[in-house]
């Protein structure tokens, strides 16, 4: 997939984040901006959905604050931050300046993955065109799954490996915000909270970028309103190209949902919560009928084990043990492992991986039985779930 996929969708009338901006960023007082963001109900778009105004207010109480625009997107099944940065870098820079104004920062750091040169060049060009009086830096980060986790990113920016630490950066004045969150700040500063809330649901307002891969005619990235029925979301990607066996919602920290159930769901955390699922960074993979969900999940489980930073014992040993157990169809062992692994690391990596594996065991229970009998549903030649390849931490 290339970042060009977004271009053809820009004409879409509902586009905000991917629409060209044609008005200058207004100069507004810090308190007004913060009040506007609080009223908007914007939550972090990097996956954790934490209220943005709370994080901004905490960083605003510290001295020497720094803003970090997080465009690392180490999740292999997500492309939305890369598309946003390539297509609309100025809106992200606007948002970073709004955040800097609120927290009193003079320095802006932009962090992107090392491998995608297009993203880096477009952002670099946009930054060079600005003359807003902010000091900015552009850093590239290894394309590892956990490298974009706040503390891991800050550790890397400080010269260390891109591995998580026990620090909470925002309590120390380092405000790390996902680039899509920042783009929303750039819009809210222009058009206000009421405008922002015209889209989405009352509880989950706004539009979001989604990455859809797998059994759709035109995989890629699009902008949709929160609350849009999944069926309509998939229409934005040309509709289904095969019968959906299951849908992975929320990427590799996410949850498998059975195909038919998934199509009826609205794209909102409120609807996903009863299924134990969450939108995360809104990566959605539609598994076609001729793919083996078990083999796909086992590949990802092994990948997630290899993406452990190796710092916390339960994650280092536990995720490898889970990948082994999934490959050997040892469901009892997986059940025993889950509580020994989830919640026992410095970051959420073991929790997310455990959730992913547990949902695979649940949704692909029939496939596990088939494999035990020496059979497999999979006849597809290509693999559906993409994996990352970087082996670097620095």
């Amino acid at each position: 997939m290339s970042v060009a996929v977004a271009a053809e969708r820009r004409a879409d009338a509902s586009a905000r984040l991917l629409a060209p901006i044609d008005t200058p960023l207004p100069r507004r007082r810090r308190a007004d901006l913060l009040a506007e963001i609080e009223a908007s109900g914007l939550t972090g778009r990097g996956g954790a959905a934490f209220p943005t105004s709370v994080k901004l207010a905490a960083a605003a109480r510290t001295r020497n604050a720094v803003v970090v625009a997080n465009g690392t997107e180490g999740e292999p099944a997500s492309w939305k931050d890369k598309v946003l940065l390539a297509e609309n870098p100025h809106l992200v820079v606007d948002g970073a300046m709004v955040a800097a104004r609120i927290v009193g920062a003079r320095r802006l750091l932009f962090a992107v993955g090392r491998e995608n040169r297009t993203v880096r060049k477009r952002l670099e060009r946009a930054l060079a065109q600005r003359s807003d009086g902010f000091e900015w830096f552009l850093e590239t980060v290894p394309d590892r799954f956990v490298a974009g986790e706040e503390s891991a990113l800050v550790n890397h920016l400080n010269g260390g490996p891109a591995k998580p630490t026990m620090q909470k950066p925002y309590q120390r004045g380092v405000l790390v915000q996902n680039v899509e969150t920042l783009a929303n700040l750039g819009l809210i500063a222009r058009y206000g909270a009421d405008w922002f809330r015209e889209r989405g649901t009352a509880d989950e307002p706004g539009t979001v970028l989604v990455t859809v891969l797998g059994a759709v005619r035109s995989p890629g990235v699009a902008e949709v309103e929160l609350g849009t029925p999944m069926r309509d979301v998939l229409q934005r990607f040309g509709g289904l190209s095969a019968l959906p066996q299951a849908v992975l919602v929320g990427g590799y920290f996410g949850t498998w949902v059975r195909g038919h159930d998934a199509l009826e769901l609205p794209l909102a955390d409120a609807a996903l919560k009863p299924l134990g699922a969450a939108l995360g960074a809104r990566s959605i993979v539609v598994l076609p009928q001729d793919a083996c969900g078990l083999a796909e999940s086992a590949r990802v489980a092994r990948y997630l084990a290899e993406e452990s930073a190796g710092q916390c014992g339960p994650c280092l040993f536990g995720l490898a043990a889970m990948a082994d157990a999934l490959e050997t169809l040892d469901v009892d062992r997986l059940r025993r492992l889950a509580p020994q692994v989830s919640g026992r690391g410095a970051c959420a990596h073991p929790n997310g991986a455990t959730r992913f594996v547990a949902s695979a065991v649940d949704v692909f229970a029939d496939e596990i039985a088939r494999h035990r009998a020496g059979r497999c549903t999979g006849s597809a030649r290509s693999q559906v779930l993409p994996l990352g390849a970087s082996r670097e931490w620095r």
Partner: protein
Amino acid sequence: MEMRMKLRVNPILCDGYGHCAELLPELVELDEWGYPIMPREPVRRSLAPAARHAVKMCPRLALSLEKSER
């Protein structure tokens, strides 16, 4: 109200020496790789001295007692 303390481990520092489970078998269990599983409940008053001792004896300084939210 009485101050309640919870036992916590810094999982990055912890190397699974297992001293805490030796010293505090009432509270700390080891997982199958030898890393300690922390109790969910705050430390009972009768075990507080033993817990403080275990914190001091951790060779990685990974164990701590922190004020409980509850």
